[in-house]
């Protein structure tokens, strides 16, 4: 009896900070993702087990983070942000150049990608900043927030890594937006952005310009940058309403889809599961975002509200950009599909976010008590 009691207490303690709706949704998406990774790599590299390992590790990370109270998380804001920026500067100065992009930093035994840290550090830092000046918020604070946002964004965009820059910038912008950036400024920014578009166009790298051009008409470069879009839209379109069936996608299994287990995994899924599968996946992401918003809405402090909201909208940005580019309505940028694409780093970052959401949610109840 005593042993049972001990076990029960141990178990209750173990799951004390787990949000089951969130866990259930993410586990469902991950199961779909795992099956799709299996289909994408069954002919060649067999990545399913490796991805399952990544998922296990990410879940452990999530568990640890969920146990940290938001106040502790706040303590990480400044150091993490500073370390992130310093590393980004280091990348700018000593980074390893691969395929024309300077994104990696060698730290002896392995290489790290500091821009990945920024995906969490950015909303954390900004949420902390707005929390700190909550009572005395003025225009200059938005200007400083913008500065906090622009420096890492610029460094990442310069690498160049437009996809990550968009995700980092997006996460930061959501914080500022949710913190109450005046609509006048938002509309002004949009107008200024539209006016500056031609200049921005020239600031883009050749390969980035090309990606946007091929989005408008992929057939201009069918064997080059248009190839990805052409083949992935063929995969999606040929899937039809019910899909070709699991493991039966011809575009997938005859190797027509490039990067099919990473950035283009959605084409694989969509070809085999069709419109119905897509609707289910969109619904799952909507549930995930909905749950995240509920958590944000019910959070107890401005810091946790802003952080939860930004992380949640970050998931949306990931999913929308990825599915948009694979289905040919957004330019191709390197953004994985959250909880689906193969890759350990992205999963860990995503589950850091889930862990934070869980922490915010479960610690809110403790605070109330």
């Amino acid at each position, binding site marked *: 009896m005593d042993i049972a009691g001990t076990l029960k207490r141990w178990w209750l303690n173990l799951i004390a900070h787990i949000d089951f709706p969130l866990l259930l949704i993410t586990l469902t998406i991950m199961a779909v993702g795992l099956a799709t990774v299996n289909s994408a790599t069954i002919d060649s590299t067999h990545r399913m087990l490796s991805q399952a390992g990544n998922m296990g590790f990410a879940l452990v990370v999530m568990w640890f983070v969920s146990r940290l109270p938001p106040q502790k998380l706040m303590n990480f804001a400044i150091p993490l942000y500073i370390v992130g920026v310093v590393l980004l500067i280091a990348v700018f100065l000593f980074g390893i150049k691969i395929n024309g992009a300077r994104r990696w930093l060698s730290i002896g035994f392995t290489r790290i990608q500091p821009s990945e840290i920024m995906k969490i550090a950015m909303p954390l830092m900004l949420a902390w900043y707005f929390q700190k000046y909550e009572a005395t918020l003025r225009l200059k604070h938005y200007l400083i927030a913008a500065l906090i946002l622009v420096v890492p964004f610029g460094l990442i965009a310069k690498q160049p890594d437009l996809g990550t820059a968009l995700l980092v910038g997006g996460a930061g912008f959501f914080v500022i937006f949710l913190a109450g950036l005046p609509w006048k400024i938002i509309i002004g920014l949009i107008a200024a952005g539209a006016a500056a578009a031609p200049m921005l166009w020239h600031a883009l790298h050749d390969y980035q310009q090309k990606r946007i051009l091929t989005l408008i008409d992929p057939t201009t470069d069918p064997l080059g940058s248009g190839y990805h879009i052409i083949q992935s839209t063929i995969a999606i*379109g040929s899937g039809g309403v019910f899909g070709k069936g699991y493991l039966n996608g011809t575009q997938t299994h005859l190797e027509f889809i490039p990067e099919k287990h990473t950035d283009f995994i959605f084409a694989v899924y969509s070809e085999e599961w069709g419109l119905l599968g897509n609707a289910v996946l969109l619904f799952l992401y909507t549930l995930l975002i909905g749950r995240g918003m509920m958590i944000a809405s019910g959070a107890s402090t401005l810091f946790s509200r802003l952080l939860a909201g930004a992380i949640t909208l970050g998931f949306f940005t990931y999913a929308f950009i990825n599915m948009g580019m694979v289905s040919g309505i957004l330019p191709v940028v390197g953004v994985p599909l959250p909880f689906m694409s193969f890759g350990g780093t992205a999963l860990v970052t995503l589950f850091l976010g889930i862990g934070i959401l869980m922490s915010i949610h479960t610690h809110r109840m403790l605070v109330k008590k």
Partner: protein
Amino acid sequence: MGDFHNPEGDLDRFRFRLGFSAVLVLVCFSILLARFIWLQVIQHDFYQTRAEDNRIALIPIVPNRGVITDRNGIVLAHNYSAFTLEITPSQAGNLEETIDALASVIDIQPKDRKRFKRLLDEAKNFESIPIRTRLTDTEVAAFAAQRYRFPGVEVKARLFRQYPLGKVGSHALGYIGRITERDLKWIEEAERQPNYKGTDHIGKTGLEQHYEFELHGETGYEQVEIDAGGRALRSLKRIPPVSGNNLQLTLDIKLQEITEKAFGERKGALVAIEPETGGILAFVSNPTYDPNLFVDGISPENWKELNEHPDKPMVNRAINGAYPPGSTFKPFMALAALETGKRTPSQAISDPGFFTFGNHTFRDDKKGGHGSVDMYKSIVHSCDTYYYVLANDMGIDNIAKFMAQLGFGQRTGVDLGKDDSGESKGVLPSPEWKKQRFKRPEQQKWYAGETISIGIGQGYNAYTPMQLAQATATLANNGVMFRPHLVRHIVDTKTEEKRQVEPKPIRDLNLKEKNLEVIHRSMLGVIKEGTGARAFAGAPYLAGGKTGTAQVFSLKGADYKASAVKQHLRDHALFIAYAPIDKPKIALAVLVENGGFGAQSAAPIARMVLDYYLLGKLPAGAAKEDSDAVEEERDE
């Protein structure tokens, strides 16, 4: 952002903004859903087809090209299977290194590398290109053992065209070569592109070109599932190819060979026709070339040698060379005179050895003249004066009209080359022709004096040996004219049915029997007692013939000037003949460039051909020039 802080207001604003974001999320997801519906429902059929096109490749299977045999079934062109070593550039990596490494396993000559480079420039990246052809079994085995070292390199069995007799009959057979831009246009115009998928050779000249679409066959294909790298994974369906139709020729290749030998080193042409059908028995243009050189793609050295050789072996003299017919024109002139009623056979002139027209004197070769000359004597002794007078009496329009019926100055339509492109028209002189030929008004006018030398086959007259042979065959066949042709029948591979190519005469000149009889008798006289008597001494059959000499300096062939410029100004020798005279089985025209007098070099070749064809008599060697004939020839 007011100056005061209101936590409740902040929370409301936060929730409003969150709600706003939620709407944004739903709008964006709706856009995605709309996009999916567009792709997967509305455009589904289109993308379905695209996916299938991606997945399935049709691999063409090239058919066997039709076989060409002579009239007795001797094979003149066929295919044999041989192993080639081929590289697919897109799969092979660094080509230079690959070839260098291959050279350590298999003998690769600089010429192989050159050809590979040339083909590489023309080819698409995913096609395999031969680096070596005709591998021996040992070489195949040597490569097979080292195969793993060479990705993108493989041994393939390919069919090669081969002409077993080499140079013999090459001007008739033609050759095949790799398809060029121009050939592609031809295929497109004929709307045969689908049937040429996978085919890389095509007929370039001669029969190979004329009968290209008969010989080619129907391309089969294999439907295979492929991956993005183009690798075939499994076969879904196979439609076998249908071999090309075979050609059986009217050509007698033994006769051809003997005739070519008879020419020896001399330049010239001979066309022998079966008068009753128009079937060509021998078709010689000398010198000749080996068509096998072209099959793998001719090397630049060989090409240069063939093209720059002073004797122009690539020129098909029989249909592209236009020569004045000289005195071989006289029997046709005589026939025209009889048919138009300008002369009777016995009507005689007194020949002083010249004919004066205006202030110009036309000379006969025999000083002092032939005395009294009737039609028989005019042909047998080749009297020029008789024909000067006759031409003047007939007038150019009548001459041109009659000669046109015999096919002079028109393409014969012989089944060689593509359309008419391979054949020259020659020149049948007439006032109309002159008008078209010249630009300035004073040149365009026809002068009556120009008619005179037309009568003896000189002046503007220029005909191909093929035209001369056709006219001779028509004469031998008593005015019933056939289109000369080399293919007797096409053997359909599918039905095994034999389609005869030329069953009907194109024209009957309705010549009067008594007129024909005069000409036949006179031409028999030529070889019995006239200018051809020496060459035909002792012939056990009766033949009709006529010698001729064409002056090189007055050569008119627009297509064929080079030889005239290059060579010494010795005259061209001509001879026309047919035999046996009562029911001719063979009619021919011979031309020997710079051969001097017709009796001297052309007639002995004709004799050899007739001896073999009628008697089966094999000659000892090349026809010897009859130097003693020179004196006698002065008669011409």
